[in-house]
């Protein structure tokens, strides 16, 4: 089954995944209309800043076993076996924050949502865009990411690609192994930012 895979080394920190996610979970599914809705839709993926101010797209891993699911006393959190997705039932959620305390990745937030009863604050997190998937679309964050920091693919294929990359670097010898052509441009920027951060700080 295809899954969203995060490649943090490719994230350029543009944050386009965030409005795309919020729009996908809005009533109108349209960016310009979505910002006028009440409640204003919020993203379920968040881009953080690393040690060198590089971006990191943080989203629910849909862990198995899932600590949030185990911590949910009212039984609002459940696993959809078909999509292998951990979901939250907004009607059952009592906004107790046990799931957020249990989550090692801090991806569960609390706010009003157009899918929850009006006026009720509930736990909200990534649902793997199951509604989009039912329509044959890929998750919104992946669709909008132009640098392939988020991909939607069979985990086996992604692992094989990574294995092949490592294998080739071994056969070439590390010194000869080269980054793909484009990487140099990003590496130059990140290298510079690292230097900037080290300059003169006490």
């Amino acid at each position, binding site marked *: 089954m295809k899954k969203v895979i995060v490649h943090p080394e490719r994230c350029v920190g543009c944050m386009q995944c965030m409005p795309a996610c919020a729009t996908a979970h809005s009533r109108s599914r349209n960016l310009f209309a979505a910002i006028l809705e009440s409640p204003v839709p919020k993203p379920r993926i968040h881009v953080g800043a690393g040690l060198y101010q590089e971006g990191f797209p943080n989203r629910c891993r849909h862990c198995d076993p899932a600590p949030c699911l185990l911590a949910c006393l009212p039984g609002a959190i459940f696993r959809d076996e078909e999509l292998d997705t951990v979901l939250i039932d907004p009607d059952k959620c009592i906004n107790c924050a046990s799931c957020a305390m249990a989550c090692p990745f801090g991806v569960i937030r609390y706010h009003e949502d157009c899918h929850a009863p009006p006026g009720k604050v509930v736990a909200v997190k990534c649902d793997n865009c199951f509604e989009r998937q039912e329509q044959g679309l890929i998750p919104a964050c992946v669709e909008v990411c132009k640098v392939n920091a988020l991909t939607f693919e069979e985990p086996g294929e992604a692992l094989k690609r990574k294995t092949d990359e490592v294998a080739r670097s071994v056969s070439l010898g590390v010194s000869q192994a080269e980054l793909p052509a484009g*990487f140099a441009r*990003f590496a130059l920027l990140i290298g510079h930012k690292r230097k900037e951060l080290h300059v*003169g700080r006490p």
Partner: protein
Amino acid sequence: MNDTYAGRTITRDGQLLLEKAEKDRVETVWDRFENQLPQCGYCEMGLSCRICVMGPCRIDPFGEGPQKGVCGADADIIVARNLCRMIAAGAASHSDHGRDLIEVLDEVAKGKAAGYRIRDAEKLKRVASEYGISSDGKDDLKIAEQLAYAMQEDFGTRKKALTLLRRAPAKRRQVWDKLGIAPRGIDRETAEMMHRTHMGVDNNWQSLLLQALRNALSDGWGGSMIATELSDILFGTPKPATTAVNVGVLKKDQVNIIVHGHNPVVSEMVLLACRSEDLLQLAASKGAAGINLAGVCCTGNELLMRSGVAMAGNHLTTELVLTTGAVDMMIVDYQCIMPSLGTVAACYHTRMVSTSDKARFPGMEHREFHPDNAAEEARALVKEAIENFTNRGEVYIPVEPVNAVGGFSVETILGALGGTPQPLIDALKSGTIRGAVGIVGCNNPRIRQDFGHVTLAKRLIENDILVVDTGCAAVATAKAGFKASDAAQMAGPGLRGICSALGIPPVLHMGSCVDNVRILVLASALANALGTDISDLPIAGAAPEWYSEKAVAIGAYFVASGVYTVLGPMPPVTGSMNVVKLLTEGLQDVVGATFSVEPDPEKAALAIRRHIEEKRRGLGLPAQKV
């Protein structure tokens, strides 16, 4: 002291006021910077394009996603177009500042600008003669009228080349002519740059960047140069004067007025009002011991250079100055004025006033200054500031000011040398002074405030390299004590001897950022005296903490004029290795100088010293191995 404060700025007043700001729950530029992290990689690499509405477009720097915008522009074209537009905006800003001064001169000539007058008639005649205007039998106002007209023509498109290009060495002008980048009209080059970067016009990244150099030259040898020369004519050519810098220049027992921005047209009138007898009496009647005018940013530099007015801080300090609670009024004109200032001032009793017809800010009252009403308006504002003195709450002025000497125009420097650059050339030839470096530009929260400026200046003067500086860089080194009368002690033995003999500091304040052209004029004078080109001189430029579009234009006109220039922060160009290589290597063969990017001022100092020794070798002068 919280590490965060010390990590944000090396200045003691900055650190203490950051603490105060946090206590007062005032958000500063550093907080907003943190909130922006991570910053968008496409934009930082110059790979996002918002020029037309088929887009916005972005290019995958890793080479797998889209490699072309909707129009078909690749990374090279998009990066070049974005950089070119930055330069156009920077050149437009400086040049528009110049235009404002022409308008004042014109109205002075026509007797419509009460309060303003011609303070340096000798310079008026000198500049007029460069424009082919004879002074024989004419009064100053007639000359001024004709000069204003001639300068306005430099902005238009009727000429083949700008008038003041003649100040550049002959060899340099040949380089420009050969490349076809001698600027024709100040407005024309900016307009053409915007035209070329429109979708479907110039899509060759090399020719785009050449036009960007021409556009930058139209600023350096046009708009900015006119701004500086006219400011000197109208407000006086700067002469060395002692002054004081940092937040400690605010006075607890006096009415404190701060001027902020770039244009002396407003601040000079405010200065006059602050010194008028009746307003001083009014201040006394409110219990104030006087009226204390101080500056921040380049408006501050303009007043400091000409009148020794004290300087409260540079770019990143502008919000913090207000958190002292001691500022009764801040009067702003334009450029580099953070839109957050009105919000900060609202936490205190400070009144905020904007004055330019082209610059408005949230939370500020707008009181428009024009040449005909400026003197009157300035008096009204100073009066209101005095009345606001009694509304003060608690005041926190945490440091004592540092003494400094400013006001080193080219005229002053050459005057101190006996009228010719020969003594400086002799010192350069013998190696007593290894070379000279212009440190310019802004503060940027990406770099610890003032660390880049101060560290670089320190390393250079220690190694007998004379430093001239402008803008926020100049304020940074002043705060660090490099412009005090005894600062020569900080210099290496050669430079120390010369500075002590002449009674000057080893770091010379040459003015505001528009005044970077003074450095071009000085470099031309040296090159002309040696019969060589600017690119052969043992000199360099540096902008260790730049942030603004104007700084990109300045950097580009330095390089296009033959000055090797080291930048601290990386411009948004890394998305195209072709553009990066052209700027850092290729330009050497084109204009005889390149950009270099190095955020670490220690390494930048080494690179600059190596460059200077190499140029010395090229001129057949004794050179060291660095």
